[in-house]
C-alpha cells in the first residue's frame, strides 16, 4: 500500500494554501469534507436554493424533490425496510432526544425502566437519564464484556415487563468495536421491547443494514460520514412515528390549525418543523454518492489495513496503555483507539501533538462515566479516515515518543 491515501487529494483542507502538513486523526469527532460535498452544497446554495415543501413555484418544488430524493437515498444507504420512515434532523443528538421525549416519555411511570450500556456517548445517556429522573424511574446500565462490546447475556437479565426501550450504540466512540446489535434486537423484541441504535460511529464504516439489524430506531449524523454538520437522520420502523406526538412545533407539520387546536400530519414531516436544511441534506446525499463511487469494499479495506497498522504500532510502545487491549476474538478491528501515555496527562499529549500538526482527541470524549469505569479521567483517541495513511501513523508514533520523553514522570509512580 502506498504511503499516502489515494483519496487525500479530494480533501481541500490538505491543499498548499490550507493545511498541507495536517495529520488528522480525529475523524470520530468529525470527518473532513471532500471537495465533492462542499461543491454540491455551494452549487445548491448559489444556483438552486429555495424553501422546500412550501412554495408552489418550480424552484421550491425542485428543493422539495431534493429533500425527498435524499430521503430515498438515505433509506437505500441504510437498507431500511420499506415499511419504515426517515426523518431529517440536526444530528444524532436531536434524533435521540426525539425518541426519548416523544416515543418513551409518554409511556413513562415510576415502575418503568430504560436500558442503555456503560459505553454510551452523553447524547445517548443524558436524554434517558433526564426522563428517568423526571418520572422517578430506573436507568439500567448493561456492562461490557472484557473485549469491550456490550455483554448481551447481562443485558438480557436487565430486561423485564417494565423496560420501555433499549438504547445502545452500534459502535462506541471510545472503544470502537461493533456491538452485536442484531442479537440485542432479537433479545429485546422477544420481550416486546423497542430498541434504538445510535449509529453515529458506525455509518462511516459502511454496511449498515437496518433490515438485518431489525431495530426500531436508528440515528446518525451526516458529519461523521464526510457530510456537513447540522444534518442527521432518525430512522423509525413501521408506524412508530404515527404514534408519537411532534417534538418541536412550527410550520409545515399540520393538516389543519385553528386558534384552539391543531391536527398534525402523519408523516416524517411531523418531525421536520420549520424550513428544511436543504443544503445540509444535499451535502449528505453527495457524501453518500462520493463514498459509493469509491466503493465500500475499498473504503473498508483501507481503514482496516490502517487500523491493523495503528494497533500494532501502538502495541510496540510499552508506555502506551490502551483503555482496552484489542482482543483477537473480536471480529472487526476498531477504526479508533483510545489510550493513555503512562505518567503523562492526555491534554499535554494533545498539545504537543498539535504543535506537530497532529490532531487527536484528548479528554473523556463525551463519555465520562465510561472513563470513570476504567478508573481514569481522560484518554487520547486516535481515529482514522479516508485521507489517512501509514505515514500519519508513523508521525503519531514519533510524536508520542517525544511527548513521553518530555513529560513522563516516572519517579513518582
Amino acid at each position, binding site marked *: 500500500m502506498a504511503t499516502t491515501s489515494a483519496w487525500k487529494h479530494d480533501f481541500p483542507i490538505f491543499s498548499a494554501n490550507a493545511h498541507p502538513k495536517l495529520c488528522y486523526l480525529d475523524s470520530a469527532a468529525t470527518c473532513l469534507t471532500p471537495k465533492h460535498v462542499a461543491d454540491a452544497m455551494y452549487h445548491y446554495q448559489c444556483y438552486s436554493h429555495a424553501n422546500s415543501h412550501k412554495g408552489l413555484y418550480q424552484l421550491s418544488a425542485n428543493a422539495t424533490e431534493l429533500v425527498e430524493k435524499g430521503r430515498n437515498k438515505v433509506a437505500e444507504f441504510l437498507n431500511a425496510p420499506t415499511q419504515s420512515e426517515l426523518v431529517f434532523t440536526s444530528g444524532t443528538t436531536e434524533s435521540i432526544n426525539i425518541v426519548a421525549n416523544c416515543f418513551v416519555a409518554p409511556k413513562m411511570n415510576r415502575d418503568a425502566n430504560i436500558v442503555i450500556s456503560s459505553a454510551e456517548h452523553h447524547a445517548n445517556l443524558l436524554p434517558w437519564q433526564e426522563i428517568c429522573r423526571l418520572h422517578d424511574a430506573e436507568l439500567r446500565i448493561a456492562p461490557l464484556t472484557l473485549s469491550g462490546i456490550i455483554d448481551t447475556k447481562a443485558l438480557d437479565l436487565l430486561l423485564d415487563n417494565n423496560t420501555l426501550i433499549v438504547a445502545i450504540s452500534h459502535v462506541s466512540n471510545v472503544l470502537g468495536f461493533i456491538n452485536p446489535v442484531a442479537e440485542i434486537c432479537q433479545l429485546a423484541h422477544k420481550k416486546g421491547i423497542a430498541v434504538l441504535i445510535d449509529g453515529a460511529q458506525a455509518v462511516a464504516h459502511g454496511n449498515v443494514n437496518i433490515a438485518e439489524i431489525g431495530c426500531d430506531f436508528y440515528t446518525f449524523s451526516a458529519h461523521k460520514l464526510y457530510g456537513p454538520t447540522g444534518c442527521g437522520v432518525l430512522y423509525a420502523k413501521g408506524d412508530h412515528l404515527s404514534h408519537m406526538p411532534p417534538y418541536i412545533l412550527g410550520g409545515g407539520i399540520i393538516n389543519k390549525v385553528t386558534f384552539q387546536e391543531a391536527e398534525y400530519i402523519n408523516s416524517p414531516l411531523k418531525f421536520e418543523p420549520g424550513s428544511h436544511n436543504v443544503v445540509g441534506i444535499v451535502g449528505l446525499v453527495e457524501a453518500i454518492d462520493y463514498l459509493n463511487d469509491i466503493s465500500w469494499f475499498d473504503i473498508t479495506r483501507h481503514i482496516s489495513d490502517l487500523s491493523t497498522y495503528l494497533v500494532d504500532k501502538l502495541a510496540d510502545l510499552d508506555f502506551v496503555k490502551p483503555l482496552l487491549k484489542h482482543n483477537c476474538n473480536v471480529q472487526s478491528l476498531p477504526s479508533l483507539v483510545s489510550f493513555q501515555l503512562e505518567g503523562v*496527562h*492526555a491534554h*499535554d499529549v494533545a*498539545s504537543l501533538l498539535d*504543535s506537530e500538526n497532529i490532531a487527536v482527541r484528548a*479528554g473523556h470524549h463525551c463519555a465520562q462515566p465510561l*472513563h470513570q469505569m476504567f478508573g481514569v*479521567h*481522560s484518554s487520547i483517541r486516535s481515529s482514522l479516515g479516508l485521507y489517512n495513511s501509514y505515514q500519519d501513523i508513523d508521525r503519531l508514533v514519533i510524536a508520542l515518543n517525544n511527548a513521553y520523553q518530555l*513529560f513522563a514522570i516516572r519517579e513518582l509512580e
Partner: protein
Amino acid sequence: MNTTAGLYQKVLLEHHKNPLGFHNKIAITHSATGANVVCGDEITVEVNITAGKVQELAFLGDSCAICRASASMMCQHLLHQPLSQIANLIKVPMDLIKGEYTAAVNSAECFSSLAVIKQYPVRMQCALLPWQTFISAINNKNEQRG
C-alpha cells in the same frame, strides 16, 4: 514544534517534574477541591493558616503539566505570606495567565513561563485552576479540618 516548546517552557517543565508541595503532608486548616469542567480534572489545595500567615501549602490530584506546574509555582509564591497580602500576590500570576497583566513585567518575571499560556486559550483554565482553588480554600471556613 516551536509552538509547544513555547507552551512548555523549561521552567514550567521543571515545576511539572519536581513540583513543590505535591502530596506534602501538612496540618490542614483550610482546603478545597476544584474541577476543570472542560476535562474533568480535579485538584485539591490544602493550606495551613496560623497567626494570619500561610504557614504550609500542598496540593494533590491527577492533572496536566500546566496545572501541576502552576500549582507548584503557587506553593513557592505564597508560602509564608501574610493573609493580608494574598489578594495582591495572587493577582499578578492570574492576570498574566489571562493576558490581562498590564504593569511593568519586572514583578512578574518569576512567572514568565505562565505568561505564554494566554496564547493557548484552551489551556488557560488548566493554569488558573490551582489559584482559584486556593481562593476557595481560604474562604472555606466550613471545610476547616485538622
